[in-house]
């Protein structure tokens, strides 16, 4: 899947256990880094944007925390925000239940997508066929 993403002409926001947050930045810094680099947004504005986005998940309190102090769900939300702030409108999620081992179904995923529906047009989830039962009828799992 990473090869598939590499071949794309434009950048696609990826949420994956293999794509960690940067450990020398806090969570807001990880989100802010994307507009700072790609849009040359000032550090202050980018951080404000990141905190504002984290508010959607009621995670403002975690803005100054590092990745290793977050729960699996918080980490997923930060990665999702980082992917959606890239501005490509497409987010690819790589084996979400590997990142969220405590979840039984996709309700948390759907709730998360709803928080950022104005920022993304399409979400693609790549997962094993064996995980198909954890997704509702609205999703097609691909092997």
């Amino acid at each position, binding site marked *: 899947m990473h090869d598939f993403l590499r071949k794309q002409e434009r950048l696609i926001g990826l949420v994956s256990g293999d794509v960690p947050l940067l450990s020398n930045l806090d969570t807001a810094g990880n989100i802010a880094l994307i507009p700072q680099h790609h849009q040359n947004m000032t550090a202050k504005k980018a951080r404000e944007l990141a905190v504002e986005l984290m508010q959607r998940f009621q995670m403002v309190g975690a803005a100054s925390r590092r990745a290793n102090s977050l729960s699996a769900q918080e980490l997923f939300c930060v990665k999702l925000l980082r992917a959606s702030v*890239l501005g490509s409108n497409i987010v690819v999620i790589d084996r979400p239940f590997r990142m969220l081992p405590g979840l039984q179904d996709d309700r948390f995923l759907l709730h998360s997508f709803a928080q950022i529906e104005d920022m993304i047009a399409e979400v693609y989830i790549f997962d094993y066929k064996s995980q198909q039962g954890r997704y509702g009828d609205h999703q097609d799992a691909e092997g």
Partner: protein
Amino acid sequence: MEKTIEIIGRAAMLAGASFGKELAFSFKVFVNLFRRDTYNSASRTVLVNQIYFTSVQILPLFIVVAITSGVLINGILFQMVKSLGLTDYLGKLLTGFVVTELAPFVTVMLIALRSSSAINTEIAVMKVNGELHALDVFGIDRIAYLFIPRIISVGVSMVLLTSLFALVVLSVGLLVSGLVFGTDADTYIEILLSSADLPDIILVLFKSAAFGFFISLIPIRSGLTATRELSSIPVAVLNGMIRVFLVIITIEALSLIPRLI
């Protein structure tokens, strides 16, 4: 015999290929130093942080080292000058030894011990954790975001801290000069100014900048050699720091050539 030649040849080819890669990497980074789009908001933020880590955080230790060195060196130097009757060469000794040789050497050793090892470890840890891969996935240029700010901050710190070291040691020299020879401040400053050569000052600035470039570039390059194994971190740091030491000695030796000609 043939086997020996084969081994030497293979080692030479590997060393040549490795040197070529180092050179290509150095050139790529050097070219990026002059590209405008390198300096986006993210890079500037890292640059400011790195200058703080490299130049400002080290200041208390650095000033203590500079004052201690100043007292010791000036004490020995002035006593020797007095006992050998070389007072006419005092200015040349101070500018030629303290400013052009001692100041950059002590500064580069301190920065290499502190910042080069930190850069080397940081890049190696980022490689092991997959954070460099994360940068690639999000289209963040490693050279612009990670490497250039570190290289510039170490380069700038080298030049500034070398100047500070020289200033502190020469200021201590003013006190020691007053104690040993009873020289007043005006005479001391005049001796220093009349002994200072512009080529020497240019050489020391150029040497400091060269030190800065290589003692940051080599740890970066070395950190990138880490694999996904945790055990590769100490190996990358160890190799990097040895190469940093070798490059310091090499630049130091090369900088003596213009003075010998």
